[in-house]
Protein backbone atom coordinates (compact mmCIF):
# COMPACT_ATOMS: atom_id res chain seq x y z
CA UNK A 1 0.00 0.00 0.00
CA UNK A 2 1.69 3.25 -1.06
CA UNK A 3 2.31 5.71 1.70
CA UNK A 4 1.59 9.40 1.47
CA UNK A 5 4.38 11.39 3.18
CA UNK A 6 2.10 14.17 4.41
CA UNK A 7 0.68 11.64 6.87
CA UNK A 8 4.07 11.48 8.54
CA UNK A 9 3.62 15.11 9.50
CA UNK A 10 0.34 14.27 11.14
CA UNK A 11 2.01 11.48 13.09
CA UNK A 12 4.80 13.82 14.13
CA UNK A 13 2.19 16.21 15.48
CA UNK A 14 0.51 13.42 17.41
CA UNK A 15 3.87 12.40 18.81
CA UNK A 16 4.60 15.97 19.88
CA UNK A 17 1.27 16.10 21.68
CA UNK A 18 1.79 12.75 23.36
CA UNK A 19 5.27 13.58 24.69
CA UNK A 20 3.90 16.93 25.86
CA UNK A 21 6.33 18.88 23.71
CA UNK A 22 6.23 22.65 23.96
CA UNK A 23 5.63 22.73 20.22
CA UNK A 24 2.57 24.88 19.68
CA UNK A 25 1.37 25.76 16.24
CA UNK A 26 0.06 29.30 16.71
CA UNK A 27 -3.70 29.55 16.29
CA UNK A 28 -3.16 32.23 13.65
CA UNK A 29 -1.03 29.89 11.55
CA UNK A 30 -3.79 27.32 11.78
CA UNK A 31 -6.35 29.86 10.59
CA UNK A 32 -4.09 31.18 7.84
CA UNK A 33 -3.36 27.71 6.54
CA UNK A 34 -7.00 26.74 6.60
CA UNK A 35 -7.90 29.88 4.62
CA UNK A 36 -5.25 28.90 2.10
CA UNK A 37 -6.33 25.27 1.84
CA UNK A 38 -10.01 26.10 1.43
CA UNK A 39 -9.30 28.70 -1.24
CA UNK A 40 -6.86 26.45 -3.08
CA UNK A 41 -9.24 23.49 -3.11
CA UNK A 42 -12.02 25.75 -4.36
CA UNK A 43 -9.84 27.26 -7.08
CA UNK A 44 -8.70 23.89 -8.27
CA UNK A 45 -12.26 22.65 -8.45
CA UNK A 46 -13.33 25.82 -10.25
CA UNK A 47 -10.68 25.41 -12.92
CA UNK A 48 -11.87 21.85 -13.51
CA UNK A 49 -15.48 22.91 -13.61
CA UNK A 50 -14.72 25.49 -16.28
CA UNK A 51 -13.71 22.61 -18.51
CA UNK A 52 -17.12 21.00 -18.67
CA UNK A 53 -20.82 21.68 -19.03
CA UNK A 54 -22.37 22.26 -15.63
CA UNK A 55 -25.71 20.78 -16.60
CA UNK A 56 -24.25 17.28 -16.69
CA UNK A 57 -23.42 17.58 -13.03
CA UNK A 58 -26.96 18.12 -11.81
CA UNK A 59 -28.03 14.48 -11.94
CA UNK A 60 -25.02 12.95 -10.18
CA UNK A 61 -25.00 15.81 -7.65
CA UNK A 62 -28.57 15.02 -6.68
CA UNK A 63 -27.76 11.37 -6.14
CA UNK A 64 -24.55 12.11 -4.24
CA UNK A 65 -26.29 14.53 -1.89
CA UNK A 66 -29.33 12.31 -1.50
CA UNK A 67 -27.33 9.25 -0.54
CA UNK A 68 -25.09 11.40 1.65
CA UNK A 69 -28.13 12.64 3.54
CA UNK A 70 -28.87 9.08 4.54
CA UNK A 71 -25.68 8.92 6.59
CA UNK A 72 -26.77 11.07 9.56
CA UNK A 73 -30.23 9.51 9.42
CA UNK A 74 -28.70 6.06 9.74
CA UNK A 75 -26.13 7.11 12.34
CA UNK A 76 -28.62 8.83 14.63
CA UNK A 77 -30.71 5.82 15.76
CA UNK A 78 -27.58 3.71 16.06
CA UNK A 79 -26.02 6.28 18.37
CA UNK A 80 -29.19 6.86 20.34
CA UNK A 81 -30.38 3.26 20.72
CA UNK A 82 -27.24 1.18 20.58
CA UNK A 83 -24.91 3.80 21.98
CA UNK A 84 -27.36 5.16 24.54
CA UNK A 85 -26.33 8.71 23.77
CA UNK A 86 -28.75 11.50 24.65
CA UNK A 87 -30.80 12.80 21.77
CA UNK A 88 -28.67 15.93 21.34
CA UNK A 89 -25.42 14.04 21.55
CA UNK A 90 -26.60 11.48 19.05
CA UNK A 91 -27.77 14.25 16.71
CA UNK A 92 -24.53 16.16 17.02
CA UNK A 93 -22.33 13.14 16.37
CA UNK A 94 -24.56 12.18 13.44
CA UNK A 95 -24.13 15.66 11.99
CA UNK A 96 -20.34 15.46 12.29
CA UNK A 97 -20.23 12.14 10.47
CA UNK A 98 -22.78 13.16 7.90
CA UNK A 99 -20.81 16.24 6.99
CA UNK A 100 -17.35 16.09 5.43
CA UNK A 101 -13.75 16.91 6.27
CA UNK A 102 -11.95 19.17 3.81
CA UNK A 103 -8.52 18.04 4.93
CA UNK A 104 -9.34 14.35 4.67
CA UNK A 105 -10.50 15.09 1.14
CA UNK A 106 -7.24 16.92 0.43
CA UNK A 107 -5.17 14.02 1.70
CA UNK A 108 -7.26 11.65 -0.39
CA UNK A 109 -6.63 13.76 -3.47
CA UNK A 110 -2.91 13.90 -2.66
CA UNK A 111 -2.89 10.13 -2.27
CA UNK A 112 -4.42 9.70 -5.71
CA UNK A 113 -2.12 12.18 -7.39
CA UNK A 114 0.79 10.34 -5.81
CA UNK A 115 -0.42 7.22 -7.59
CA UNK A 116 -1.03 9.23 -10.74
CA UNK A 117 -4.65 8.20 -10.51
CA UNK A 118 -6.99 10.64 -12.25
CA UNK A 119 -10.34 11.67 -10.77
CA UNK A 120 -13.23 13.86 -11.79
CA UNK A 121 -12.34 17.50 -11.10
CA UNK A 122 -15.84 18.32 -10.00
CA UNK A 123 -15.50 16.21 -6.86
CA UNK A 124 -14.88 19.54 -5.12
CA UNK A 125 -18.45 20.50 -5.93
CA UNK A 126 -19.61 17.46 -4.00
CA UNK A 127 -17.34 18.45 -1.16
CA UNK A 128 -19.18 21.75 -0.97
CA UNK A 129 -22.62 20.22 -1.42
CA UNK A 130 -22.04 17.55 1.20
CA UNK A 131 -20.89 19.92 3.89
CA UNK A 132 -24.16 21.33 5.07
CA UNK A 133 -27.19 19.04 4.58
CA UNK A 134 -26.02 16.84 7.46
CA UNK A 135 -25.75 19.89 9.71
CA UNK A 136 -29.36 20.81 8.98
CA UNK A 137 -30.44 17.25 9.60
CA UNK A 138 -28.48 17.15 12.84
CA UNK A 139 -30.19 20.25 14.16
CA UNK A 140 -33.55 18.94 13.08
CA UNK A 141 -32.89 15.60 14.80
CA UNK A 142 -31.89 17.34 18.00
CA UNK A 143 -34.79 19.74 18.11
CA UNK A 144 -37.64 17.69 16.67
CA UNK A 145 -40.80 18.60 18.48
CA UNK A 146 -39.16 21.33 20.53
CA UNK A 147 -40.14 24.28 18.42
CA UNK A 148 -36.93 26.27 18.76
CA UNK A 149 -35.04 24.51 16.01
CA UNK A 150 -33.39 27.75 15.04
CA UNK A 151 -32.60 26.43 11.59
CA UNK A 152 -32.29 29.98 10.27
CA UNK A 153 -29.34 30.69 12.52
CA UNK A 154 -27.69 27.46 11.47
CA UNK A 155 -28.31 28.20 7.81
CA UNK A 156 -26.58 31.56 8.17
CA UNK A 157 -23.84 30.04 10.28
CA UNK A 158 -23.17 27.52 7.53
CA UNK A 159 -23.63 29.56 4.39
CA UNK A 160 -21.86 32.64 5.66
CA UNK A 161 -19.40 30.39 7.48
CA UNK A 162 -15.89 30.74 6.26
CA UNK A 163 -15.46 27.23 4.95
CA UNK A 164 -18.37 27.40 2.51
CA UNK A 165 -17.52 31.00 1.66
CA UNK A 166 -13.94 30.23 0.75
CA UNK A 167 -14.68 26.98 -1.03
CA UNK A 168 -17.51 28.43 -3.08
CA UNK A 169 -15.61 31.70 -3.58
CA UNK A 170 -12.61 29.75 -4.81
CA UNK A 171 -14.81 27.66 -7.08
CA UNK A 172 -16.35 30.75 -8.62
CA UNK A 173 -13.04 32.55 -9.08
CA UNK A 174 -11.46 29.45 -10.60
CA UNK A 175 -14.45 28.99 -12.84
CA UNK A 176 -14.50 32.64 -13.97
CA UNK A 177 -10.77 32.97 -14.46
CA UNK A 178 -10.13 29.52 -15.89
CA UNK A 179 -6.81 27.70 -15.95
CA UNK A 180 -5.24 30.37 -18.14
CA UNK A 181 -6.36 33.32 -16.04
CA UNK A 182 -5.22 31.72 -12.79
CA UNK A 183 -1.79 30.83 -14.10
CA UNK A 184 -0.01 33.71 -12.30
CA UNK A 185 -1.51 32.46 -9.04
CA UNK A 186 -0.52 28.81 -9.56
CA UNK A 187 2.80 29.28 -7.82
CA UNK A 188 0.95 29.93 -4.60
CA UNK A 189 -2.32 28.07 -4.79
CA UNK A 190 -1.21 24.91 -6.59
CA UNK A 191 2.54 24.56 -6.10
CA UNK A 192 2.49 25.19 -2.37
CA UNK A 193 -0.56 23.08 -1.71
CA UNK A 194 1.04 19.86 -0.61
CA UNK A 195 3.77 21.39 1.51
CA UNK A 196 1.35 23.62 3.36
CA UNK A 197 -1.02 20.71 3.77
CA UNK A 198 1.87 18.90 5.47
CA UNK A 199 2.35 21.75 7.94
CA UNK A 200 -1.39 21.90 8.55
CA UNK A 201 -1.41 18.18 9.26
CA UNK A 202 1.39 18.65 11.76
CA UNK A 203 -0.92 20.98 13.61
CA UNK A 204 -3.89 18.66 13.22
CA UNK A 205 -1.77 15.98 14.84
CA UNK A 206 -1.25 18.18 17.86
CA UNK A 207 -4.94 18.98 18.04
CA UNK A 208 -5.91 15.34 17.63
CA UNK A 209 -3.54 14.34 20.43
CA UNK A 210 -5.14 16.94 22.70
CA UNK A 211 -8.47 15.22 22.08
CA UNK A 212 -7.32 11.79 23.22
CA UNK A 213 -8.35 12.62 26.77
CA UNK A 214 -11.91 13.21 25.62
CA UNK A 215 -11.99 9.68 24.36
CA UNK A 216 -11.93 8.26 27.84
CA UNK A 217 -15.26 9.92 28.50
CA UNK A 218 -16.56 8.68 25.16
CA UNK A 219 -16.83 5.02 26.03
CA UNK A 220 -16.16 1.90 24.01
CA UNK A 221 -19.24 2.22 21.85
CA UNK A 222 -18.25 5.57 20.42
CA UNK A 223 -14.72 4.35 19.79
CA UNK A 224 -16.10 1.49 17.76
CA UNK A 225 -18.53 3.78 15.97
CA UNK A 226 -15.67 6.11 15.00
CA UNK A 227 -14.12 3.29 12.99
CA UNK A 228 -17.18 1.37 11.83
CA UNK A 229 -19.02 4.43 10.57
CA UNK A 230 -16.34 5.59 8.12
CA UNK A 231 -15.95 2.05 6.81
CA UNK A 232 -19.68 1.78 6.26
CA UNK A 233 -19.95 5.27 4.76
CA UNK A 234 -16.88 4.70 2.59
CA UNK A 235 -18.38 1.51 1.19
CA UNK A 236 -21.62 3.32 0.46
CA UNK A 237 -19.62 6.04 -1.27
CA UNK A 238 -17.68 3.63 -3.43
CA UNK A 239 -20.89 1.85 -4.41
CA UNK A 240 -22.71 5.10 -5.21
CA UNK A 241 -19.79 6.26 -7.33
CA UNK A 242 -19.69 2.99 -9.23
CA UNK A 243 -23.38 3.17 -9.96
CA UNK A 244 -22.92 6.72 -11.22
CA UNK A 245 -20.05 5.53 -13.42
CA UNK A 246 -17.29 7.58 -11.80
CA UNK A 247 -13.66 6.69 -12.42
CA UNK A 248 -11.77 4.63 -9.86
CA UNK A 249 -10.18 7.83 -8.51
CA UNK A 250 -13.56 9.52 -8.31
CA UNK A 251 -15.02 6.55 -6.48
CA UNK A 252 -12.17 6.53 -3.97
CA UNK A 253 -12.70 10.24 -3.36
CA UNK A 254 -16.45 9.99 -2.93
CA UNK A 255 -15.88 7.14 -0.50
CA UNK A 256 -13.39 9.33 1.35
CA UNK A 257 -15.89 12.20 1.49
CA UNK A 258 -18.68 10.03 2.85
CA UNK A 259 -16.30 8.41 5.31
CA UNK A 260 -14.83 11.64 6.58
CA UNK A 261 -16.21 13.43 9.62
CA UNK A 262 -16.32 17.21 9.75
CA UNK A 263 -14.27 18.93 12.41
CA UNK A 264 -14.42 22.52 11.21
CA UNK A 265 -17.94 23.42 10.15
CA UNK A 266 -19.79 20.84 12.24
CA UNK A 267 -18.34 21.64 15.68
CA UNK A 268 -18.93 25.34 15.14
CA UNK A 269 -22.50 24.87 13.96
CA UNK A 270 -23.43 22.29 16.59
CA UNK A 271 -21.98 24.37 19.41
CA UNK A 272 -24.37 27.18 18.51
CA UNK A 273 -27.41 25.22 17.46
CA UNK A 274 -27.30 22.24 19.84
CA UNK A 275 -25.54 23.57 22.93
CA UNK A 276 -26.72 20.70 25.12
CA UNK A 277 -24.59 18.30 23.08
CA UNK A 278 -21.23 17.58 24.64
CA UNK A 279 -18.59 18.65 22.13
CA UNK A 280 -16.02 16.35 23.72
CA UNK A 281 -17.89 13.34 22.39
CA UNK A 282 -18.32 14.42 18.80
CA UNK A 283 -14.96 16.13 18.42
CA UNK A 284 -13.15 13.42 20.31
CA UNK A 285 -14.52 10.76 18.00
CA UNK A 286 -14.23 12.72 14.75
CA UNK A 287 -10.80 14.18 15.36
CA UNK A 288 -9.26 11.75 17.81
CA UNK A 289 -10.13 8.57 15.94
CA UNK A 290 -11.87 8.92 12.61
CA UNK A 291 -9.53 11.53 11.17
CA UNK A 292 -6.31 9.57 11.89
CA UNK A 293 -8.03 6.34 10.91
CA UNK A 294 -9.05 7.73 7.54
CA UNK A 295 -5.61 9.16 6.90
CA UNK A 296 -3.68 6.04 7.65
CA UNK A 297 -6.06 3.16 6.98
CA UNK A 298 -9.23 4.52 5.45
CA UNK A 299 -8.06 6.21 2.29
CA UNK A 300 -5.99 3.28 1.02
CA UNK A 301 -8.89 1.00 1.87
CA UNK A 302 -11.41 3.11 -0.03
CA UNK A 303 -9.09 3.20 -3.00
CA UNK A 304 -8.72 -0.57 -2.89
CA UNK A 305 -12.48 -0.89 -2.66
CA UNK A 306 -12.98 1.44 -5.60
CA UNK A 307 -10.66 -0.72 -7.64
CA UNK A 308 -12.49 -3.91 -6.73
CA UNK A 309 -15.80 -2.38 -7.71
CA UNK A 310 -14.51 -1.11 -11.05
CA UNK A 311 -16.59 -2.57 -13.80
CA UNK A 312 -18.49 -4.75 -11.34
CA UNK A 313 -21.50 -2.61 -10.55
Amino acid sequence: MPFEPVILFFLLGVLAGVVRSDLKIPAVLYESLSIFLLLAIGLKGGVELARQPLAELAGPALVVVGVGALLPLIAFPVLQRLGRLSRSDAASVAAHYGSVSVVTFAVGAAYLSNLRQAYEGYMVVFLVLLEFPALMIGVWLAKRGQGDANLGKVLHEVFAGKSILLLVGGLLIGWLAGAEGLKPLDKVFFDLFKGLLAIFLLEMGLVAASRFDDLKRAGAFLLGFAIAMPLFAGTLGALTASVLGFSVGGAALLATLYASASYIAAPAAMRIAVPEANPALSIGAALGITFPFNLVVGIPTYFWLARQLEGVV
Partner: protein
Amino acid sequence: MSLTHTRRTLLCVICESSIEAAVVADARRLGAHGYTVSDARGWGNHGERDGGWPMSGNVRIEILSEASVADAIATHLQKTYFAAYAMVCYLSEVSVLRSDKF
Protein backbone atom coordinates in the same frame (compact mmCIF):
# COMPACT_ATOMS: atom_id res chain seq x y z
CA MET B 1 -8.82 59.98 43.55
CA SER B 2 -9.29 63.62 42.95
CA LEU B 3 -11.05 63.43 39.61
CA THR B 4 -14.76 63.50 39.38
CA HIS B 5 -15.06 59.78 39.34
CA THR B 6 -18.23 57.81 39.24
CA ARG B 7 -18.72 54.29 40.53
CA ARG B 8 -19.59 51.78 37.85
CA THR B 9 -19.65 48.02 37.72
CA LEU B 10 -17.19 46.04 35.65
CA LEU B 11 -18.53 42.72 34.48
CA CYS B 12 -15.89 40.34 33.23
CA VAL B 13 -17.00 37.30 31.28
CA ILE B 14 -14.59 34.54 30.36
CA CYS B 15 -16.10 32.05 27.95
CA GLU B 16 -15.46 29.90 24.93
CA SER B 17 -14.94 31.95 21.82
CA SER B 18 -17.70 30.20 19.90
CA ILE B 19 -20.28 32.28 21.79
CA GLU B 20 -18.48 35.62 21.71
CA ALA B 21 -20.84 37.06 19.11
CA ALA B 22 -23.89 35.87 21.01
CA VAL B 23 -22.71 37.23 24.35
CA VAL B 24 -21.85 40.70 23.08
CA ALA B 25 -25.13 40.85 21.17
CA ASP B 26 -26.95 40.02 24.38
CA ALA B 27 -24.98 42.64 26.29
CA ARG B 28 -25.90 45.33 23.77
CA ARG B 29 -29.52 44.34 23.84
CA LEU B 30 -29.56 44.53 27.64
CA GLY B 31 -28.15 48.05 27.75
CA ALA B 32 -24.35 47.94 27.58
CA HIS B 33 -22.84 50.93 25.81
CA GLY B 34 -19.56 49.26 25.05
CA TYR B 35 -17.41 46.21 25.58
CA THR B 36 -13.83 45.07 25.17
CA VAL B 37 -12.74 41.60 24.10
CA SER B 38 -9.40 39.88 24.15
CA ASP B 39 -8.37 36.34 23.32
CA ALA B 40 -7.46 34.03 26.15
CA ARG B 41 -6.83 30.44 27.04
CA GLY B 42 -7.45 28.70 30.33
CA TRP B 43 -8.58 25.79 32.40
CA GLY B 44 -11.68 25.14 34.46
CA ASN B 45 -14.52 22.69 34.91
CA HIS B 46 -14.61 22.05 31.19
CA GLY B 47 -10.96 21.04 31.09
CA GLU B 48 -8.08 22.75 29.40
CA ARG B 49 -8.79 25.17 26.59
CA ASP B 50 -5.43 25.95 25.08
CA GLY B 51 -6.52 28.12 22.19
CA GLY B 52 -4.42 26.21 19.66
CA TRP B 53 -7.50 25.34 17.69
CA PRO B 54 -10.52 27.56 16.95
CA MET B 55 -12.89 25.39 18.99
CA SER B 56 -10.60 25.48 22.02
CA GLY B 57 -10.16 29.23 22.36
CA ASN B 58 -11.56 31.44 25.11
CA VAL B 59 -12.36 35.12 25.13
CA ARG B 60 -12.32 37.60 27.96
CA ILE B 61 -15.11 40.16 27.66
CA GLU B 62 -15.19 43.28 29.82
CA ILE B 63 -18.32 45.36 30.11
CA LEU B 64 -18.41 48.60 32.09
CA SER B 65 -21.91 49.74 32.97
CA GLU B 66 -24.25 50.81 35.69
CA ALA B 67 -24.73 48.16 38.37
CA SER B 68 -28.26 47.40 37.26
CA VAL B 69 -27.24 46.75 33.68
CA ALA B 70 -24.30 44.61 34.76
CA ASP B 71 -26.66 42.64 36.97
CA ALA B 72 -29.14 42.16 34.19
CA ILE B 73 -26.45 40.93 31.83
CA ALA B 74 -24.90 38.61 34.39
CA THR B 75 -28.30 37.13 35.24
CA HIS B 76 -29.09 36.61 31.61
CA LEU B 77 -25.74 34.95 30.90
CA GLN B 78 -26.15 32.67 33.88
CA LYS B 79 -29.58 31.60 32.69
CA THR B 80 -28.64 31.21 29.05
CA TYR B 81 -25.13 29.83 28.91
CA PHE B 82 -23.92 28.43 32.21
CA ALA B 83 -25.49 25.01 31.73
CA ALA B 84 -24.02 24.25 28.35
CA TYR B 85 -20.92 26.38 27.87
CA ALA B 86 -17.56 26.94 29.48
CA MET B 87 -18.09 30.30 31.17
CA VAL B 88 -17.07 32.28 34.22
CA CYS B 89 -18.35 35.73 35.26
CA TYR B 90 -17.26 38.14 37.93
CA LEU B 91 -18.23 41.65 38.90
CA SER B 92 -16.26 44.39 40.56
CA GLU B 93 -16.66 48.02 41.50
CA VAL B 94 -14.50 50.51 39.63
CA SER B 95 -14.30 54.27 39.19
CA VAL B 96 -14.72 55.61 35.70
CA LEU B 97 -13.95 58.89 34.06
CA ARG B 98 -16.38 59.99 31.35
CA SER B 99 -19.23 58.50 33.34
CA ASP B 100 -21.78 59.66 30.77
CA LYS B 101 -20.48 56.94 28.49
CA PHE B 102 -21.52 53.94 30.58
